[in-house]
């Protein structure tokens, strides 16, 4: 039997230029309505002229292992999928929006059709052995789809010896997205 997958992402902010191709790729892949987004790009600059530093990063649902949205969902519409991702069953979603309030990452929104929507980590693609739309378009390969269950796998190799962080870890969400910090020295 194939080993259970546990999908996550390693996002290398050292190379991300914030071009937003991931956002557009997601929009067309997943028919995200105009004015909405499942993923987004942040360009953060700190310091004062001329001592400035910048980090660009693509963000989305963190597919937490301990997801407050799943905890809070009254109907089980938000649930853990067998591949380690957090998914929404549209035909059980009442649109109560509790999951939106519960998400510390503001990753969800109410789709104009009523159900709550968010990044699915392109489950319809990963099921076919494809990478997510955002990962497959990313010109800098900043975005990487990884299987966190893979021992000493790609994820580990990518992150070894580098400054890596997860967002709001102290929220206890155990998120599946890892960021390689832009403050790493070249070639770290």
């Amino acid at each position, binding site marked *: 039997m194939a080993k259970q997958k546990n999908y996550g992402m390693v996002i290398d902010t050292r190379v991300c230029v*914030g071009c*937003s191709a991931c*956002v557009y790729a997601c929009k067309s892949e997943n028919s995200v309505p105009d*004015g*909405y*987004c499942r993923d*987004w*790009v*942040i*360009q*953060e*600059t*700190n*310091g*004062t002229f001329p001592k400035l530093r910048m980090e660009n990063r693509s*963000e989305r649902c963190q597919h937490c292992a301990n997801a*407050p949205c799943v*905890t*809070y*969902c*009254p*109907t*089980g*519409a938000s649930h853990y999928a067998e591949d380690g991702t957090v998914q929404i069953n549209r*035909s*059980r*979603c*009442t*649109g*109560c*929006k*509790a999951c*939106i*309030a*519960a*998400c*510390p*990452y*503001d990753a*969800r*929104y*109410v789709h104009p*059709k*009523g*159900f*709550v929507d968010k990044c699915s980590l392109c489950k319809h693609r990963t099921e076919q052995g494809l990478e997510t739309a955002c990962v497959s378009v990313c010109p800098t390969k900043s975005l990487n789809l990884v299987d966190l269950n893979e021992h000493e796998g790609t994820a580990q190799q990518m992150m070894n010896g580098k400054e890596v962080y997860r967002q*709001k870890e102290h*929220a206890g969400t155990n998120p599946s997205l890892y960021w390689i910090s832009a403050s790493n020295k070249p070639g770290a």
Partner: protein
Amino acid sequence: MTSTTTEIISTKVNPGVIPHLHIWEWHIPLYLFLGGIAGGLLVITSIMIVLKRRFGIGPQDEGDGCPCLAVRIGSILSPALLGIGMIFLFLDLANKFYVWAFYTTIQPTSPMSAGSWILLAFFPLAILQAMLVNKKFLRGLNIPIVSKLIDWTEDHLTIVALLNAHIGVGIGIYTGILLSFFSARPLWASSILGMLFLVSGISSAAALMLLFAPDREKPVYSMIDANAIWIELVVVGLFVLGGITGPANSSGAMMHLIAGDTQMAGMSYMLWFWGIFVALGLVIPLLLEFLEAAGVHIRFPQVAPVLVLIGGLVLRFLIVFAGQTYHTFM
């Protein structure tokens, strides 16, 4: 260290989420308000029933086991108001056709799932109480099934009321817990919010009863109201203190509420909180009721309870809105 600036450019857009949460508008505060009053009414009426039947305390009842008028009306209003509140709750659902999904599962970790079942459990007993306290009137209608139901259960009114006192407390607290489970929203993530909404629900319920109680019953509700307001003031104090002495998330959120210049209906949160909720909704009615109890003639005795009700409503709006307009747990 030299001063440093942070510039963030984001492509994120999602209506109702960006620039800040705006998923819940008037429906939810109104539901929480009505739910609070429903819980409060159930607590007060059921305790009044128990006190009267067990200990003979309270206004004179109307004979044949029917309690005083305010309790009779209050018992009816409790499920009625909650029912109306639930209509608002339903109206708030973005995917209304799927409302049935609440009742095909029990999600043990979801307060909303628990709540949706508690709400169902609430109605039979609350309605039963409303029927029993109004049995004289109902029997007069000559509906066999209703009369039969009353016949079967009338001896157990005390037990029904005792259970309802607990359910009422549960509903009151639940309206606060619903929000305080959201650890992602620092203002709501306070365990005292349940207590605050319960006490506020009771004070609002007492105020409401004060409005429709006949004069001879008024002093009881005035006393309940005054005491509830006292306790509420203490709980509000604890809520505020707990916030501002807390870590950055909580204190920031609390300051956003009590000193924030974010506007709600053209007025800052700070003014709403101190001016409307605390001063107008708690302190002034407390003073008025104190004066009235001390024998000072108050020209418009309705003012105090109306202010309490306004305060209760404003509290729900403030908490729901300020909790949304502050950023997530950082």
